[in-house]
């Protein structure tokens, strides 16, 4: 749906038909129409792209940045480790929605500002996760062997440590995409995320709110889309964990 929205609907998500405003769901419009007569099914379908692209890119950036920092922290000496852990603690302590709200208001509203604001705080979680992994594997035999064989430090980091440390990062990233979708949608709902006329699910719920009491389907369907997507990522995350790491269980945030 995200890659090829036009397969799922032949309607233009931005086509305005004033004659069919706020129609209830019907055969022609399975999800009804909005205040400008635009087809809600088409808008929900096209909304998958900005919503998912923003969430995925946020987590990819945070995970990549955090993993690199975590790898370096784990490999660096004691003093640097101590110091960098304090820094990550600082970023972890940011209240995310409040920070993103302030950041996006000042820098300029839009999905991009929200993604940047959240990425600024999110990488620290991955840095800590990665560091923990590196500390576990650093003293393992295969690393010591590689070191004894005279391999260079960066080769050991890149080809021996990194692949072994990645699986918890992947699990966390999958589950975090669902969190990111919820957070970004909430920010859009508060008015600092996606701006109209972009068909983004959170923003659609916001507009639908105005018509809630008389035209309830408007807010229902985009919200349902968020719910189903988030649920799928949560289930997917649990599957990924079962495959990569059968021993672990549901727990707290690292």
């Amino acid at each position, binding site marked *: 749906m995200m890659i090829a929205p036009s397969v799922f609907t032949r309607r233009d998500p931005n086509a305005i038909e004033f004659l069919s405003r706020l129609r209830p769901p019907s055969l022609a419009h399975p999800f009804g129409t909005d205040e400008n007569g635009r087809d809600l099914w088409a808008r929900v379908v096209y909304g998958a792209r900005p919503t998912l692209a923003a969430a995925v890119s946020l987590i990819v950036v945070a995970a990549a940045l955090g993993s690199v920092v975590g790898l370096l922290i784990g490999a660096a000496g004691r003093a640097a480790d101590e110091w960098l852990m*304090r820094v990550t*603690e*600082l970023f972890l*302590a*940011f*209240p*995310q*929605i*409040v*920070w993103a*709200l*302030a*950041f996006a*208001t*000042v*820098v300029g509203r839009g999905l991009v500002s929200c993604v940047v604001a959240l990425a600024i705080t999110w990488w620290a979680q991955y840095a800590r996760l990665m560091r923990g992994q590196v500390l576990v594997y650093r003293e393992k035999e295969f690393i010591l062997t590689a070191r004894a064989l005279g391999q260079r430090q960066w080769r050991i980091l890149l080809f021996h440590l990194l692949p072994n440390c990645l699986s918890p990062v992947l699990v966390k990233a999958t589950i975090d995409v*669902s969190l990111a979708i*919820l957070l970004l*949608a*909430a920010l859009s*709902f*508060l*008015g*600092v995320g996606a701006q109209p006329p972009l068909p983004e699910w*959170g923003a659609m*719920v916001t507009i*639908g*709110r105005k018509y*809630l*009491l008389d035209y*309830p389907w408007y*807010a*229902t369907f*985009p*919200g*349902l889309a*968020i*719910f189903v997507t*988030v*649920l799928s990522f*949560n*289930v997917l995350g*649990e599957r990924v964990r079962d495959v990569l790491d059968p021993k672990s*269980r*549901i*727990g*707290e945030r690292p």
Partner: protein
Amino acid sequence: MRLVLQRLPLLIVLLAAISAAVFTLTQYLPGDPAFVAAGGGDATPEMVAHARARLGLDKPLWARYLYYMRNAVQGDFGNSIVNRKPVIEDVRKYWPASLELALAAIAISALVGIPLGLVSAAWTGRWPDRLITPASVFLGSMPIFWLGLMAVFVFYRQLDLLPAGGRLTVGLVPPPAVTGLLLVDSIIAGQGKVFGDALRHLILPATILSVISLAMITRVTRAALLDILHEDYLRTARAKGLSERRVLLKHALRNASVPILTIVGLQLGQLIGGVVVTETIFSWPGLGLYAVTAVDNQDYPALLAFTLVTTAAYVTINVFVDLLYPLLSPQTRR
């Protein structure tokens, strides 16, 4: 006490960092406040320069920041751009409403979540667990703003059982403010009618907000109990002939209390973000709604104050949770 001293620097550094970040951003906004203060279009360059000096805008960024922070520490966050009143007055006016909402929500999610976790740990893998665990993932996947709107539609529009928003019905006089929490104040004033009305207004927003932490509290309770269910002392308790119920409630729950209380405390901090969203849905006159209004009006002094106050609250809660550890569990005492 040592822990307090260890944690205090983090709080200060964090507040300094977040305020510096937001403050610096606000200083590079388009538009020249000195030009506006000097009267706009007709202002001569001399007038603008004069206004700039008067507002302290000719000073370097760090000096302006220090000046702002010196006032902020004393409770002066400047005046709102919109209503010209000191921001601190509005913060004082709105924060009790947010506190009442957050406390009610955390109470609901703890009172529901801990028993649910207990039940699913006691019947691991059997039907109560198979029902509760997926249900908590299910619930945790819902965007609360959407859930809130659906609740308004069902309980207000369709069933007409509960009000759609606000803290009190319009026309009802609030009790004299003692704590600022309407439920408490109405009891103190002995006004049963106001209490009932406030409670009816609180139910929906608090329940919706509690959804955020409910799933997490259930999961952690379950995991914490599963961790210890096979420990020797519990086997001994069972061997002594205690009923399974007594073993769980008396022995297991107490030993699992550290992670459970920790997560309840941490979730209280997590709720701050949710409070903003919930207050927006239910027009709940608290700090969150104030902040969203400030966002809409580009009211930077108000927004900056909100950011500082909530960050301080958030970090304080987390530090407080850290301090609880040694009290609850003698093993972590140093």
